C-alpha cells in the first residue's frame, strides 16, 4: 500500500507540443556553452595541463594567504595559485606547468622546504608531468568516443537506425552541455570529470532506452494513431518511472554532495547536472528527434 502519492497518475501531458520551445532552449544552451568554451575555455586541472597540486592543513595558526603567496613567488617556480578549501586552515597550492620539463618535480620539494617553519600537514600532493597530461587528455577523449560508438552500435542492433541516431543526438547533447556547464561556471575539469561525463552518458542513455522501448511497443499496439500522439502516450506512461528514478538517484547524489567532502564534490556536481540534463534530454531531445527523423514507418 503506497503511503505517499507524489506522482500524478493517468497523466495526459502533450509533451510534444513544447518540442519547439525545448529545441530552442537546447540550441540556446548550446550556443552559450559554445561561446563560453570559445572565450574562457575549460578550467583544466593538473591532470590535463600537468603541474603541481599541494593541499595542506595548518595545525594551529591560520595561514596568511598574502604572505604565503609572497613567499612562494620568491621560489621562482612559475605561477602559483593559492586558495582556501572548505575552511581557512585548508589551503590548496597549484602550480601550473609552463616550463614543460622535469624541473617541476623539484618545486614540490621547494614548496615543502619553504613551508617547513609552519606547523602544517600535507594532505595531498600531486604532480602530473606534461607527457602524462597529454596522454590523459587522449585517453579521456578516446574513452568518450568509444563509449558513444559502443552505445550507438548496441542501440542500432536492438532498435532501428533512426532510434540509434536519435539516442546519439541526445547523448551528444548531454555530453556537450556538461562540458559547457563546466566551462560556464569554470569548475575544474579533470580526470574525474571525464569519468562523470561517461557516467552521465550511461545514465542518459538508460533513460532514453526505456522511453524508446515504450515508443516502439506503443507503435506496434496502436497502428492508426498519429506518431506525435504515440510519443506523448509513451512519455506519459513512463513519466512516473522517469521521475522516480531521477529522484532516487538525485537523493543519493545530494547526500554525497553535502556530506561526501570536497575531494569528490566536483565529480558529484557533474553527476547531478548530468542526471537533470539526461532526464530532460530523454523527454525533449531524444523523443522529438524521432519525430523529426520520421521513424514512423507505417506511412512508408
Amino acid at each position: 500500500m503506497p503511503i505517499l502519492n507524489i506522482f500524478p497518475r493517468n497523466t495526459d501531458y502533450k509533451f510534444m507540443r513544447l518540442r519547439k520551445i525545448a529545441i530552442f532552449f537546447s540550441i540556446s544552451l548550446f550556443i552559450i556553452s559554445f561561446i563560453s568554451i570559445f572565450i574562457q575555455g575549460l578550467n583544466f586541472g593538473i591532470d590535463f595541463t600537468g603541474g603541481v597540486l599541494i593541499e595542506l592543513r595548518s595545525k594551529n595558526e591560520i595561514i596568511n594567504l598574502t604572505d604565503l603567496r609572497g613567499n612562494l613567488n620568491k621560489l621562482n617556480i612559475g605561477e602559483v595559485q593559492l586558495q582556501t578549501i572548505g575552511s581557512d586552515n585548508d589551503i590548496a597550492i597549484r602550480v601550473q606547468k609552463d616550463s614543460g620539463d622535469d624541473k617541476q618535480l623539484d618545486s614540490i620539494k621547494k614548496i615543502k622546504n619553504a613551508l617547513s617553519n609552519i606547523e602544517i600537514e600535507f594532505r595531498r600532493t600531486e604532480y602530473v608531468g606534461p607527457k602524462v597530461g597529454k596522454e590523459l587528455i587522449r585517453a579521456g577523449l578516446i574513452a568518450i568516443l568509444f563509449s558513444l560508438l559502443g552505445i550507438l552500435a548496441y542501440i542500432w542492433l536492438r532498435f532501428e537506425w533512426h532510434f540509434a541516431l536519435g539516442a546519439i543526438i541526445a547523448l551528444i547533447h548531454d555530453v556537450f552541455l556538461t562540458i559547457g556547464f563546466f566551462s560556464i561556471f569554470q569548475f575544474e575539469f579533470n580526470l574525474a570529470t571525464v569519468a562523470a561525463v561517461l557516467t552521465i552518458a550511461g545514465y542518459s542513455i538508460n533513460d532514453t532506452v526505456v522511453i524508446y522501448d515504450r515508443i516502439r511497443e506503443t507503435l506496434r499496439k496502436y497502428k492508426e494513431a498519429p506518431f506525435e500522439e504515440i510519443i506523448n502516450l509513451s512519455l506519459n506512461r513512463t513519466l512516473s518511472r522517469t521521475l522516480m528514478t531521477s529522484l532516487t538517484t538525485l537523493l543519493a547524489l545530494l547526500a554525497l554532495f553535502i556530506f561526501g567532502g570536497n575531494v569528490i564534490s566536483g565529480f558529484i556536481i557533474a553527476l547531478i547536472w548530468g542526471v537533470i540534463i539526461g532526464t530532460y534530454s530523454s523527454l525533449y531531445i531524444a523523443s522529438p528527434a524521432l519525430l523529426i527523423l520520421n521513424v514512423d514507418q507505417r506511412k512508408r
Partner: protein
Amino acid sequence: MVQFKKWQTFIVILFGILGFIFSIPNFFKSETLNNFPNFFPKKQIVLGLDLQGGSYLLLEVDTNSVINDNLNNFMDEVRLMLRKNKISYSRFNLEEKIITLQIKNQNKKDLLEKKLKKFSNDIEYKFIDDNTLTLNFTDQKLFSIQDTAVLQSVEVVRRRVDEFGTKEPTIQRQGVKRILLELPGITDPERLKKLLGKTAKLSFQVVDEDITSSELKSGKHKPGIVVLPSDKLVDENSEPILYAIKKRDTISGDLLINASPSLDRNSPVVSFQFNSKGGRKFGNITKKYVGSRIAIILDNKVISAPNIREPITGGRGIITGQFTFQEVTDLAMLLRAGALPAPLNILEERSVGPSLGTDSIQSGKFASILGFILIIIFMYLIYGTFGIFANIALIFNLLILLSILTLIQATLTLPGIAGIVLTIGMAVDANVLIFERIKEEIKLGLSPIASVDIGYKQALKTIIDANVTTLIAAVMLFGLGSGPVKGFAVTLSFGIITSMFTAIMFTRILIIIWLKKTNPKVINL
C-alpha cells in the same frame, strides 16, 4: 514468470548467503577480525591510496640512455676493428641511434664488409654513397635492449623499495617502459624519490697522478683518461674538484656482495665487501697502484679518492667522504639494491596524507549510508509493501556487491564509493520499471498474478537494454587512466550487474511468496 523454478530459488538463496558471508568482514575492524575463529572469512576490501593514504608514482625508464650506452660501446668495437685492419676513417659519429662514418680507403671495402658481417646479426649496415657508411642496431636488438633495461629496472626498484621498508608495495611494469609504484602508508615520498632518482652506478677507478691541473682545466689530455668532478663542493660557491680517472683497471660496483653503514674514527662511512672475483681484482689493482689514489665513483661523480697505502686483499673496504649518517645509510642501501641500468624519470606522483584518507572514508561512509537510508525510506513511501521487497533486494544487492569487490580484491577508492551510491540509486530503477509496469497492467484490469507476470515480462527487456548501454559506458572507464577513476569503473560495472540480478530475482521471489501467502484480490500499488 510467477512460477519460480527450484534452481532459481536455490540460486537466490545461495547468492544471498554468500553475499552475506563474504561481505561481513568489511563491517569489522581487522583487529577484531583476527580474534574470530579460523573458518570465518577474513578478507576485506582493499582500500585505494586515496582512502588509506599513500603514494602513487609513475616512473619512466630512460631507455634512450641505455641504447646510447650500447651504441657507444659498439662504436668502440668498430673503432678497434678499423684500426686493426688499418682502415682509415673520419667523421665517426652517432646521431639519432645511427652511426655514420667516412671510409677513406675504397679498396678495403670488401674486407670491411666481411668484418662487419662477422660482428653480429643485430647490426645493419649500409653504404649511402661510395665512402659513407651507416650502422645501426636492428629493431629487435633495440627492443631487447629496452626490454631488458626495463625488466632490470623493475627488479632494482623493487629491491630499493623493499629496503626502504614499505608495507605491501605494488610494483609493476606498465606499457613498454614505465613502472608503476603504489606505496600504501608512504605519505611523504621525497626521500624515496631521491633514492629512486639515483642510478647508483658505483665503480673504483685509479686516479692518473701525472696530469697537471692546468691540463685538467683545459680539457686537453692524453687518451684513456676521463675527467670527473667531485660529488661534494667545499662550499656553495666553489667549483667542484676535477679528477683525471684512468679508464683501464676499473672495478664495477656489481661485484659487491654487501654494503652497510658504519663508523670510522667517529665519522659515518659505508663498509663494503666484494665477492671473490671482485676481491681478487681489487687486490691486484691495489697492488699494482700502491701510492696512487683510487677514486670511488658514484654516477659519474667522485665521492672520495683515498690513497692506496698497501694492497687490499681481503675484499673488504670502506667508503669515506663527508657523509651524514642518513647519507651512508642511503648509499649502503643503494649499493645493496644494485645499480639501475638507466636513469628513471618521475612522470606522475599522487600522495595522500593519512588524515585526508581517514576524512574521505568517514565522509564517504556517512554520505553513502545516508543516501541508502533516504532511498529506502523513499521507496517505502512510494510503493508500500512492494517498496519493502525492493529494499530487501537492495540490501542484498549491496552485500553481494561488497562480497564481489572483496573476493576479487578490487580496490575501493573514493569515486568508487560514489559508484556504489550511484548504483544503489540506479538499482532502484529496475524495480521502479517493474512496479510501474505492474501498476499499468493492474489498471488494465488484470488479476494480481497476471499483472505481476506480465509486468515482469515486459519490464525485463527494457531493463536489459537500458543496463547493457550503461555497462558499455562503465567498461570504457576502465581504459581511463589512474587508480581512483578505475575504482569507480569497477564498482559501477559490478553494481550494474548485481543490481540487475537482485532487482529481478530477489524482488520476484519475495513478491511470489507474498502473492501465495496472502492471495490478494487486488494489488494496491
